[in-house]
């Protein structure tokens, strides 16, 4: 009886997936060039080229325009994805940070009934290697956070690297994770993010308005509020993920 159920579930799942695949292939087959039209506009004519050229002019008329290092723009982040995430669509990012906070808090709450694990000291090799690795991991993480506006990277990825360093330390040391300090750091970073937005509201008249001078494109101290926001997000994500990792390590 049980075996037959198993086979039935497997078979129906297989059929359902096959139907989905066939449907997709069929749609592709029908697509004679004007199907959904998602891919029709060439990238150079899409509305998001406004972000690339850092202007509101019609992108079709910008064939001779260029954005060059050493100039000042409304947002002079060289990495355009960073400009979108931390400036043009900062409200989305604020919501994202809140969702991350809620999920970390929810996971911590669900693991509330924790048994003390039998603490065991890590071996000599781990105990010796972890401080060394942590040193380099913190440097790399800080680099990624600070260069989010100049190249690939940013607060989320750099924060994850920083958190990996701290989680490594939790693994090596059997003592309890310093939850208090992590929670305080996280709360302070969240408040700092809101304070940055409010400062923009007071000084510039719009929430998260750019109240820091834009440097020249390509400099380390450029891109105004983007750098500040990514540093705050890096600290917050690092604290959050470390607390989460500490919860999971201490949980079982």
């Amino acid at each position: 009886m049980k075996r037959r159920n198993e086979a039935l579930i497997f078979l129906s799942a297989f059929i359902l997936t096959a139907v989905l695949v066939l449907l997709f292939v069929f749609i592709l087959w029908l697509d004679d060039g004007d199907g959904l039209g998602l891919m029709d506009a060439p990238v150079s004519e899409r509305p998001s080229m406004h972000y690339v050229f850092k202007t509101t002019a019609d992108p079709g008329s910008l064939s001779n325009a260029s954005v060059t290092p050493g100039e000042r723009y409304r947002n002079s982040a060289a990495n355009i994805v960073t400009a979108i995430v931390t400036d043009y669509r900062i409200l989305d990012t604020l919501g994202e940070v809140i969702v991350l906070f809620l999920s970390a808090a929810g996971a911590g709450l669900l693991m509330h009934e924790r048994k003390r694990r039998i603490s065991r000291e890590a071996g000599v090799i781990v105990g010796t290697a972890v401080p060394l690795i942590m040193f380099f991991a913190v440097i790399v993480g800080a680099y990624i956070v600070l260069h989010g506006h100049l190249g690939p990277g940013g607060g989320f990825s750099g924060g994850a690297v920083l958190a990996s360093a701290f989680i490594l330390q939790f693994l090596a040391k059997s003592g309890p994770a310093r939850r208090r300090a992590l929670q305080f750091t996280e709360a302070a970073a969240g408040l700092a993010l809101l304070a940055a937005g409010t400062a923009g509201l007071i000084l510039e008249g719009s929430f998260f308005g750019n109240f820091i001078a834009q440097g020249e494109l390509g400099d380390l101290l450029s891109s105004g509020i983007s750098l500040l926001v990514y540093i705050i997000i890096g600290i917050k994500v690092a604290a959050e993920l470390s607390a989460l990792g500490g919860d999971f390590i201490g949980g079982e």
Partner: protein
Amino acid sequence: MESTAFIISGLAIVFVGIFGLLTRRNLIRVLLSLNILSTGVNLFLVALGYAENAKAPIITETVRAGSEMFTDPLPQALVLTSIVIGLGSTAVGLALTLRHYRRTGSLVIGKEEDTDAA
């Protein structure tokens, strides 16, 4: 052509994830399937902004907007959000899994015995 292959591979990963979600009973494997699915969706979204012979949307001394074509940066910013949300949902799912394991002593849902089955 390249971008079509990109889209098809992203959707293939989505189908792998759906199949895993439907057939697995071990909660860890269900979460893995969910992550595979979301990876496929992220690939699909990035593929929508792909352009052939285009550069990553970062302005440097040699790569400038105007002289070079960039891929669409907007889906990439969206995917950044999507990755973070995926991480959050995975964390909550793992916490729920841990709770289920403590209560029942098994990672498998839907049946009480035969815990070694997938």
